[in-house]
């Protein structure tokens, strides 16, 4: 795939020639990574030993402390080596900054995807491909778990390894797949949708992406340390003082992933607020842009809390602080309050962009305006605000102050109202439409129906007496998979299929796409629906072994989960083969109105050869003569539109 244009080649005229010989070791890139990583390793080691020697702490060589420091130092070395900090370092030390020659922009060969690249479209592709890699890795971990759970008793792995499997499975799926996959899709389409040439901070954007592989590798390597077997929730004191060093790999992995998502969110906010094309008022934004706007607000407000919680457990673990150590009057439940103050909003971080994608897809394939556009946008804001007032519904049985439960139940069930508005509006958008059942639409409709089941089981969990019964059981496992798999993942699939022609310039195979949908839809329900029953009947979550009376159903679930896992192969095959050999995509295969479809597939390096003038809403299907935007050639001058 190439995105070269002649306009861009002209910009290249002033670029410096590439370095030769040993100087290549100094240029940002993979040759600089090994020695810079080693250098930072040495610096980290030196500082640690020096401080321990100077303070008289024995032993001076403490593996735990050194490893923890290196989990910060080596990634910095990697990022410095690949060139994440070059521009700012030069600026900070007073060297003359290099004028931007756009040589780090756009992709002309596959190599351009493996370096620091400041083009939001390249970064979007980097994000999506990387997150799919971690999705497959985390999915394979789930397959091992289901193999172990197919029969009662222990067959393939030990208890501790099993605990590590589900911990890393969840950590990867949440921090390295769902959250960044939405960030990646947003990265690609948001600047296009609002008529901007790129994100507001392209270098920060590049850095945000390269933090992800670091976070993912930390979490995967926790298996070899060993010992991250305390669940992705990382509850203290199990995760702070009763775990091996692997838990620290999780703590630090969350920091890198969290920093990445905060920086991206900041970038989205500034881009959306300041870089909209003329005429693109907030009430003309596509709903995906609204969704990423609210999600980004959630990220920048909430993510620092999980960063804090993970630092505190890590300090308890390594530095023997007593934040959550009850023996020294630490506050054990404090961890859960801080953790869920992030992690409940995180559910919406993983859901709102999916709402946005569903709105785009359903409107386009129903050939109808989104029903109640303004209420759709406002309900996103309502979820944003309410999302911060419900965290303790994860703690109804935790032993927290009992009076807190009923208020938290009330706010939790009230969130059903804005969520219901969205579901009913999508349904009303279908009504009297002209429905086209391409793969993105199938996944969007699959999302709506599965998300309704996940939302309804959420009502059960919000009702305190029922929650007391099913808390920490397979009912919860079923619920979160209906929300995060049936919800988030279905919309991610919808988004990937929907924008695949735009991103790659090629069409995917529609028949394989539909096959993928049906296999996934059936496999998903067969795997997760019976888990409701297991949970209510008495099977707790996070166990490697269970009572013999649950054997038959678990066997069925395991078989279904292998079927579900195999359906992913269809997806991967379709994506890889279509990207290489698919039919060339037209600029606007779905006849959509939003701006990303008004430019070529893939778009020019700087997105728009001429700045679009937005003159109406994004979903004016069926309105005679209505347009979302016009380009210079056929601009309609409207006085009140120009000065926005």
């Amino acid at each position, binding site marked *: 795939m190439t995105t070269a244009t002649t306009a861009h080649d002209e910009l290249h005229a002033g670029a410096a020639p590439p370095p030769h010989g040993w100087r290549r070791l100094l240029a940002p890139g993979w040759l600089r990574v090994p020695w810079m990583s080693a250098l930072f390793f040495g610096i980290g080691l030196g500082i640690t030993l020096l401080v321990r020697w100077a303070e008289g702490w024995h032993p001076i060589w403490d593996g735990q402390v050194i490893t923890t420091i290196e989990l910060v130092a080596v990634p910095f070395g990697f990022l410095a080596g690949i060139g994440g900090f070059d521009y700012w370092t030069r600026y900070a030390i007073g060297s003359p900054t290099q004028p931007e020659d756009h040589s780090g922009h756009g992709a002309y060969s596959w190599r351009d995807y493996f370096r620091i690249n400041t083009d939001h479209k390249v970064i979007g592709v980097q994000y999506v491909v990387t997150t799919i890699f971690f999705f497959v890795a985390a999915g394979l971990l789930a397959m091992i778990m289901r193999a172990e759970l197919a029969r009662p008793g222990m067959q393939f792995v030990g208890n501790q390894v099993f605990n590590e499997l589900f911990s890393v499975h969840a950590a990867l799926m949440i921090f390295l797949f769902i959250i960044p996959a939405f960030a990646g899709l947003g990265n690609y389409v948001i600047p296009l949708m609002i008529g901007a040439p790129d994100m507001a901070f392209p270098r920060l954007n590049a850095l945000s992406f390269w933090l992800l592989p670091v976070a993912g590798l930390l979490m995967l390597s926790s298996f070899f340390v060993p010992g991250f077997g305390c669940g992705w929730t990382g509850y203290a004191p199990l995760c702070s003082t009763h775990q091996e060093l692997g838990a620290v790999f999780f703590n630090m992995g969350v920091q890198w992933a969290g920093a990445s998502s905060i920086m991206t969110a900041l970038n989205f906010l500034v881009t959306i607020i300041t870089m909209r094309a003329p005429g693109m008022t907030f009430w003309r934004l596509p709903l995906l842009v609204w969704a990423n706007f609210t999600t980004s607000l959630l990220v920048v407000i909430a993510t620092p809390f999980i960063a804090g919680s993970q630092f505190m457990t890590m300090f308890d673990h390594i530095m023997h602080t007593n934040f959550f150590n009850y023996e020294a009057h630490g506050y054990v439940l404090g961890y859960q309050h801080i953790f869920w103050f992030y992690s409940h909003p995180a559910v919406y971080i993983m859901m709102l962009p999916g709402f946005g994608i569903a709105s785009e897809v359903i409107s386009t394939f129903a050939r109808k*305006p989104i029903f109640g*556009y303004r209420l759709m946008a406002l309900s996103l804001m309502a979820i944003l605000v309410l999302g911060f007032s419900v965290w303790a519904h994860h703690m109804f049985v935790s032993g927290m102050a009992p009076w807190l439960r009923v208020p938290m139940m009330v706010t939790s069930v009230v969130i059903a109202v804005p969520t*219901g*508005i969205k579901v009913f509006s999508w349904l009303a958008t279908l009504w009297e439409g002209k429905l086209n059942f391409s793969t993105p639409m199938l996944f969007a409709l699959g999302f709506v129906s599965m998300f309704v089941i996940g939302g309804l089981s959420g009502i059960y969990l919000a009702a305190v007496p*029922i929650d007391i*019964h099913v808390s920490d059981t397979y009912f919860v496992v079923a619920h979160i998979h209906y929300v995060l798999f049936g919800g988030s993942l279905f919309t991610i699939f919808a988004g990937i299929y929907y924008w695949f022609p735009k991103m790659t310039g090629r069409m995917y195979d529609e028949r394989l796409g539909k096959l993928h949908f049906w296999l996934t839809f059936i496999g998903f329900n067969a795997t997760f629906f019976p888990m409701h029953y297991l949970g209510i009947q008495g099977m707790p979550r996070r166990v490697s072994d269970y009572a013999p009376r649950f054997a038959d159903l678990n066997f069925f679930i395991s078989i279904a989960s292998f079927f579900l896992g195999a359906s992913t192969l269809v997806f991967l095959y379709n994506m890889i083969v279509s990207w290489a050999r698919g039919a060339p995509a037209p600029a606007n295969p779905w006849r959509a109105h939003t701006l990303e479809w008004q430019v070529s597939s893939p778009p020019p390096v700087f997105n728009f050869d001429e700045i679009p003038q937005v003159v109406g809403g994004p979903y004016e299907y069926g309105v005679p003569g209505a347009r979302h935007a016009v380009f210079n050639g056929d601009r309609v001058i409207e006085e009140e539109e120009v000065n926005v």
Partner: protein
Amino acid sequence: MRRGVLVRLVAVGLAAAAVASAVAFFVPWLPTPASKQADRIDFVFWFVTGISIAIFALVVAVILYSVVRFRARPDDDSDGAPIHGNTGLEIAWTAFPAVLVTAVAVVSAVALAQNENLPKKHLQVNVLAQQFAWSFSYPKYKGLTVSALHLPLNEAVELKMRSKDVIHSFWVPQFGQKQDLVPGITTKLVITPKRLGTYPVVCTELCGEGHALMRSEAIVMKPTAFASWVKAQERAAAKASQGPSGGGPGLAVFNSNGCSGCHTFKPAGSTATTGPDLDNLPADARRAGKPLSAFVRESIVDPNAYIEKGYQPNIMPSTFKSLPKQQLDALVQFLIGGKK
């Protein structure tokens, strides 16, 4: 909306509701309730299920109807009707769910208050959890401590629960009630058993490597049977403390460290099966090829040194190596029971 459309929509909705209701009623979803609290939980469960079926049927009806009725023909490139919204509808689907969820919240709050109401006359049981065992003691019966929860029928019980190490969670599915045990604080749970039987006690909060094995039993007995069980336990405890093995201090160490939570050992009257049966220690020592007393001592302070066939390493806590020497000696003496 035309009348024909409405009739067809309602028909699809009723069919969906019928299917969902059949799944709800013909699958025995809930465990047979064995406590008064579980009855109230079940009521809330069915209340929410009724509402859920209605909403699910509505959504399914609209989706199925739309998929069939509004499908575009392959050659049809036209757009749908340009409907931007309908204020009345939007108000309706904001207000109606708000009323429904308010009803759910009210019903839940009432059931919760009733479930936590503790009558004056009740039995108190102290629950102690540690990796990976339960122990239950009865202050009313001179601190009688056992590894399986025994309860008299129809008498309210208050569990006062503490944890020694990490967070655990107490759950008996048939009782419906659940509560975490948090190190450093005492949590409470109210249960009124109403059905005789033996039910599983399950730890539902991930507590470490042996989490999946942290199980015990709750046994609901007739009040008379419970009274005679208490007497028998008290007699056995008295006998053990005066027995030939010099149980006294060793038995106390055995009980206070929760050994009875995982191990069967006749002199202590314990019957748990998470770990190996300690009545077979001499045979185990022969298999390990070590003198009995050295073997027992090693197995306490370094549990992974020898793992009996059929059991897994790392389940027994390694914290017992910090027992004071005096207590450790007494415990070893008690366990080998005078044998060499």
